[in-house]
C-alpha cells in the first residue's frame, strides 16, 4: 500500500480532479489543505521547491501538478 499525500487548495480544479482520480481507483491518500495550514504550505514549498498546487507525494516521490501518467506509472496501473 503506497503512502500518498496530496497538498491542495479547495478552489483548485486540478486538485479536485487528482483526488477524484485516486478515489475512483480506490487508492487511499491524505488530503492536506495548505490554505488552512500554513505549516503544511511551508512543507509543500520545501518538498517541491515551488508554490503551485497540487503537489502529490507518493512514497516520497514528489509529483507537481495532476500528472495522471506519472501517478499511474508510480502506482503500477494504466492511466
Amino acid at each position, binding site marked *: 500500500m503506497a503512502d500518498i499525500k496530496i497538498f491542495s*487548495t479547495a478552489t483548485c*480544479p*486540478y*486538485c479536485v480532479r487528482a483526488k477524484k482520480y485516486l478515489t475512483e481507483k480506490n487508492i487511499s491518500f491524505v488530503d492536506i489543505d495548505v*490554505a488552512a495550514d500554513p505549516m503544511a504550505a511551508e512543507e509543500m514549498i520545501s518538498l517541491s*521547491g515551488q508554490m*503551485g*498546487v497540487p503537489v502529490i507525494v507518493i512514497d516520497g516521490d514528489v509529483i507537481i501538478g495532476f500528472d495522471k*501518467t506519472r501517478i499511474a506509472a508510480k502506482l503500477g496501473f494504466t492511466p
Partner: protein
Amino acid sequence: MISDLVIVGAGPAGITAGIYAARKKIDVLMISRDLGGQTLLSADVENYTGYQFITGADLVLKFEEHLKQFGVSLKENESVRNIRQLPSRTIFLETDKASYETRCVIIASGRRPRWLGVPGEEALRNKGVTYCATCDGPVFSGKAVAVIGGGNSALDAALSMVKIASKVYLVNINPALAGDSVMREKVENSGKVEILNNAVIEEVLGEKFVRAIKVRYAGALKELVVQGVFVEIGSVPNADMIDFVAKNKSGEIMVDQLNRTSAEGVFAAGDVTDVPEKQIIVAAGEGAKAVLGAFRYLARLR
C-alpha cells in the same frame, strides 16, 4: 500506423470533436496536455445551454463522461510540439513523448495565459509568479500580493485575494481599470486594494521565491514588497506548433466556415482559431463542425 484523424486538445472543442468522430466511426486519436482546458478554470458557467448554473470543473466532468462512453483513444499529459506536412500529404506530429502520422488533423489546442515577458518572471514562475488565482490564491494567505492587469480577470483575482492576502496591489498599465463596472466598484470599495493605474511592472525580484516587484509608476521606479504575483493580462493562442497555416495578427489560426485552414487536411476549432467569440459553447460547436468537415475530406481521399 497512419490514423485517419488526430485531434490536438481536449477542451470543449476537442472533446466534442472526439464524440462526433467516434459516432462517425472515424479512426481517431486525441492528444492533449490536459482534459478540460480553460473550461476547467472557470468558476461559474451560467451560459452553457442546458445548464443554468454549473462550475467549469463539473462541466468538464460531464464532457468527460460523454467522451468515455465512446471509448475514444486519448493520450493525456502529452503535448504536441511540432506539426508538419509530409510529401505524401499526410501530417506528421511530434509530441514530448512520441510521434504520429495521420491523414487529417483538427487543432483544438485553445489558449494559454499571456506572460509578462519581464526579467525574473521565468525563474520565479510557480515560485510566487502564478497565472491562476483560482488555483494558487490560498497559498498566499496573510502575504502581500500584486495582481497585474486591469480587466475582469484581474479584478476577479484582486477581489478573491482581498479575503486571503494581507495586502493587494493592482498594477494596471492603462489610465483606468476596464472590466464590468460592478467589479470595478467592488475593487475600489474593498478597502484593501491599492490601485496603481498607468503602472508598468518591469521586474520580478527574488532568489528562491518572489520577494518584490519593480514597477514604473508616477514617473519613478518603485519597489513593492510582495510574495505573490498574479498575472492576468489576457491569453495567447496555442498555435506555435504549426507554421504552415495562415494565422492572423494575433497568432490565431484562420479558418473558413467549414473550419478548414489554409493547408489541406488541416482543420482547426475553438479558441485557437480566429472565431470572434471565445466561449465554451462556441468551441463545442466549432469542434463538431470541424469533424464533419474532416469526414467529408477523408471520404474524398478514398
